């Protein structure tokens, strides 16, 4: 019997029952399950009895038996009271609440926008269901056995098919090409970006079709797939299957008719492949000529690997696969002793952020994402710091509240909770405002960052979760100091006024210093970036691009029309002179290299020009002479080079010497007849490289440069356009201005300059707001002191000095911290440019002066406020 007595029901289940059960039912329920347990121990044995006991307890866990939360519950009342107090505080201290909300709103807005940007950058091509299996074939070109000189995503046309045939791991492969062509619909003619892809592309990638069958839309040579937006733009409808329009695929071919066979969903903005007009690959203008040709690298090749394949083993097999296709390169390899290039696979997810591999779509440098991310965090931290500063500033008025709460029996935990909930409420309100602000600012931000994000598409689970997390984190950071310090105050000290809180203590001052250091970094960084961009755009490039029109020479192959156009140009009094060139600056170039007799390899850019080119651009000749069209030898065996070319050739090489080993564009060991000044024919981010100019007729010219009388450029263009369409109504007319072309090279730098400028303004606004609040609070705490000072004869200026004395030292400290940081970072950035400005102390001090001026204004406003205040009232204040 004794042993039976000791068998007790499981304690945990018992406590659980007592925990949840309504007290008025507890006794009977407990009694019944206990009784059942005792009976079962006898009949079924202890284990079953225990298990059934647990089961019974669990079965009793139903709504009617569960304890009701009491109406009056101290912790619940506390929470309610906390919220009421928080709202009261927000309402009573309007200025502080305004500043806090505004700074947190601005901070959260900035971080949200930047998060969207970064998120899109890093989730590029994430939407393809087989993204793990899709790779871009990349070619690493070696300059010696172990050094890669550059990587390229461009391959010969037959490669995609050959690889798929020869390597069983490849399930599918596709070529992707893109170029700008004119399309014609009715009497409308416009230039559009056209994509070419194999039929397999649509089933490899996830580009769903709204209308049409993936497998067949591209199988007919005359078919075209349009994106929904393009269909709407061109036809005002998506119900256009069977409709047709014309595309002029190439300069010297006629318009060809294409029939719409499919409508694709708009390609998401985070896709590397961005097609709007998609043609079968065999429609590419070079297809017929080069489809079996291995020496033209023009389009990208993507492969879909079998999911079961060993990618590493496959890649090593792929590396030298080209030896089966390019016997000439194999010979090269045998003479050189190393492989001229190797293939490798690049996962689809890495394509967008790789700036090393040359490819079709513009890749982006992840560094900028990191920089932006840091800036976003800085802005958010400055916003949170404002909250901290102001909470601390107001703490003296709240110390009594805290002390009373403590006396009444609030635990420290509850006070911590109170302050944190205040911060959280505020950050929630800010987040709501921030969402509105994000909605308003998104179009501007898209423009700034060159993205096409849509607000509706951004509202998704992940982003909502991220924003909630962000709001929470912002609230926690903002509330951390008041929550911990204020809750730790000793009530007795507060009542005895032992503690002097408020105004500015060391912590607040360090926060202000930190805010201003960050603001200074951003402001000075912006100034330096602008200085550099300005320099890039306005540097004397060594030629005169003013009033120069660059005309696309699409009349090539039609000699007589060209001659007519030229004679019309000659007749136009506004045209000073014109010249032809193989390709104008920033619009393509021809790079090659030759080997000198000493075996040195000299790379160069070749420009074929007409005789007027150098005078038109006013490129000065340093040595020797210009081309003379009348001298037969000039048109056959003469070149003009730039200074960089001469430096490469070495000091022994003189004007008049033939360039041994040089063979290109019909020139063989041509003689250098003149040296021109080093003019900047490419972006200033790269060092000047050797240039060779020739007037030998070899093949056509891509551009016609027209120098007009000053200010007459647009008149000339309109006259020219009229002439053009008279002469060649079928051929599209397009032109640009040389100055714009040069500046467009710095579009990226300019964009970043503007983004950082906005970020800096954002940060400064928040920091100044915070300072404003802090100063106002500390002045409010010293009203009586100022009153006494005024009675003793102090004027506004004195008060201003007293106020500024408090902050001057810290601003100087901020400056001392910020300067080396900004100088270091900006030097790194500037070093990316071959030609860059030096960091100008004058500009920096200008920036600092403006910033400090702003601070002084804030302080002065407060000083004036304090001075204007009635002295009597100030003195009466207790």
């Amino acid at each position, binding site marked *: 019997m004794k042993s039976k007595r000791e068998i007790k029901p499981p304690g945990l289940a018992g406590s659980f029952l007592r925990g949840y059960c309504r007290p008025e039912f507890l006794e009977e329920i407990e009694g*019944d399950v206990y009784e059942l347990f005792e009976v079962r121990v006898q009949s079924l044995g202890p284990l079953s009895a225990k298990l059934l006991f647990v089961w019974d307890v669990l079965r009793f866990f*139903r709504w*009617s038996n569960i304890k009701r939360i009491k109406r009056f519950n101290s912790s619940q009342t506390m929470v309610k009271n906390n919220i009421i107090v928080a709202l009261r505080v927000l309402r009573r201290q309007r200025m502080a609440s305004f500043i806090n909300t505004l700074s947190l709103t601005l901070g959260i807005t900035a971080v949200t926008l930047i998060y969207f940007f970064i998120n899109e950058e890093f989730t590029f091509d994430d939407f393809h269901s087989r993204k793990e299996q899709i790779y871009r074939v990349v070619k690493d070109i070696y300059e010696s056995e172990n050094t890669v000189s550059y990587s390229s995503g461009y391959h010969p046309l037959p490669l995609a098919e050959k690889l798929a045939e020869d390597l069983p791991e490849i399930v599918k492969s596709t070529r992707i090409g893109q170029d700008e062509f004119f399309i014609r619909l009715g009497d409308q003619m416009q230039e559009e970006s056209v994509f070419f892809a194999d039929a397999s592309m649509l089933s490899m990638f996830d580009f769903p079709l709204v209308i049409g069958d993936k497998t067949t839309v591209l199988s007919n040579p005359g078919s075209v797939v349009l994106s929904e937006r393009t269909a709407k733009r061109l036809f005002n409808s998506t119900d256009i299957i069977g409709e047709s329009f014309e595309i002029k695929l190439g300069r010297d071919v006629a318009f060809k008719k294409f029939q719409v066979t499919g409508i694709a969903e708009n390609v998401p903005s985070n896709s590397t492949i961005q097609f709007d007009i998609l043609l079968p690959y065999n429609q590419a203008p070079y297809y017929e000529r080069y489809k079996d040709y291995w020496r033209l690298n023009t389009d990208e090749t993507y492969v879909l690997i079998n999911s079961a394949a060993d990618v590493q083993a496959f890649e090593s097999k792929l590396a030298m696969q080209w030896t089966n296709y390019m016997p000439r390169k194999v010979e090269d390899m045998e003479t050189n002793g190393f492989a001229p290039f190797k293939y490798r696979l690049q996962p689809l997810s890495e394509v967008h952020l790789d700036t090393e591999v040359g490819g079709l779509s513009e890749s982006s440098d992840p560094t900028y994402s990191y920089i932006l991310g840091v800036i976003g965090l800085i802005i958010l931290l400055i916003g949170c710091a404002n909250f901290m500063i102001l909470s601390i500033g107001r703490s003296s008025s709240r110390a009594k509240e805290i002390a009373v709460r403590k006396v009444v029996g609030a635990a420290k935990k509850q006070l911590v909770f109170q302050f944190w909930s205040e911060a959280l409420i505020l950050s929630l309100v800010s987040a709501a405002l921030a969402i509105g602000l994000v909605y308003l600012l998104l179009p501007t931000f898209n423009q700034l960052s060159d993205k096409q994000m849509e607000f509706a598409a951004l509202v998704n689970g992940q982003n909502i979760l991220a924003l909630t997390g962000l709001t929470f984190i912002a609230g926690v950071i903002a509330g951390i100091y008041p929550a911990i310090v204020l809750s730790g105050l000793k009530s007795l000290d507060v009542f005895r006024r032992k503690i002097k809180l408020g105004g500015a203590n060391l912590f607040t001052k360090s926060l202000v210093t930190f805010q201003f250091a960050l603001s200074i970094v951003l402001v000075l960084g912006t100034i330096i970036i602008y200085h550099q961009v300005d320099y890039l755009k306005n540097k004397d490039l060594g030629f005169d691009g003013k009033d120069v029109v660059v005309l696309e020479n699409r009349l090539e192959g039609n000699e007589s029309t060209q001659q007519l156009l030229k004679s019309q140009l000659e007749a136009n009094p506004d045209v000073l002179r014109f010249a032809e060139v193989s390709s104008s600056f920033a619009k393509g170039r021809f790079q090659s290299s030759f080997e000198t007799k000493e075996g040195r390899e000299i790379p160069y850019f070749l420009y074929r020009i007409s005789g007027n080119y150098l005078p038109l651009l006013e490129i000065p000749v340093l040595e020797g002479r210009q081309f003379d069209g009348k001298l037969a030898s000039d048109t056959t065996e003469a070149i003009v080079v730039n200074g960089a070319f001469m430096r490469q050739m070495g000091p022994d090489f003189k004007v008049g010497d033939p360039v041994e080993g040089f063979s290109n564009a019909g020139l063989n060991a041509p003689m250098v007849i003149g040296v021109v000044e080093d003019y900047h024919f490419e972006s200033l981010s790269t060092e000047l490289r050797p240039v060779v100019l020739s007037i030998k007729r070899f093949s056509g010219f891509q551009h016609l440069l027209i120098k007009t009388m000053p200010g007459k450029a647009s008149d000339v263009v309109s006259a020219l356009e009229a002439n053009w369409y008279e002469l060649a109504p079928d051929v599209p007319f397009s032109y640009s201005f040389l100055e714009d072309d040069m500046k467009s090279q710095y579009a990226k730098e300019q964009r970043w300059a503007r983004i950082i400028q906005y970020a800096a303004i954002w940060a400064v606004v928040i920091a100044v707001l915070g300072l404003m609040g802090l100063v106002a609070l500390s002045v409010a705490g010293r009203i009586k002191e100022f009153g006494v000072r005024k009675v003793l004869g102090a004027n506004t200026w004195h008060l201003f000095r007293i106020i500024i004395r408090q902050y001057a030292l810290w601003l100087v400290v901020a400056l001392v911290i910020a300067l080396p940081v900004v100088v270091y970072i900006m030097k790194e950035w500037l070093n990316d440019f071959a030609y860059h400005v030096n960091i100008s102390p004058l500009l920096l001090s200008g920036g600092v002066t403006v910033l400090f001026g702003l601070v002084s204004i804030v302080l002065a406003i407060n000083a004036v406020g304090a001075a204007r205040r009635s002295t009597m009232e100030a003195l009466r204040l207790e």
Partner: protein
Amino acid sequence: MKGTQLGEFEELVLLTVGALYDEAYGVAVMDEIKNETKRSVNISAIHSALRRLEEKGFVKSRMGGATNERGGRRKRYFVLTSYGKKALDDAQSLRMKLYNRIPNMSFGN
């Protein structure tokens, strides 16, 4: 009929309470149902049913005295109220009325 609605299980419990007279508490009701109907019922279901019946006024309850059993916890005893008895009578007479109308010929098949 409002208020005298009885579920099948409720009716069973109510009958059992009536049958046990002064000895009807949770476990006893459960055992009785088990014995009479061979139905396995969980004790929590009995409690819920008893509580519902009490709310409807069909039974009333009192706490018993403490004993050494059940770890010293008291029992809640339920007794049938006259209203409860009437509900049972109504149910019974309704049933009989309908039962008597079944003609012998209707046993099809």
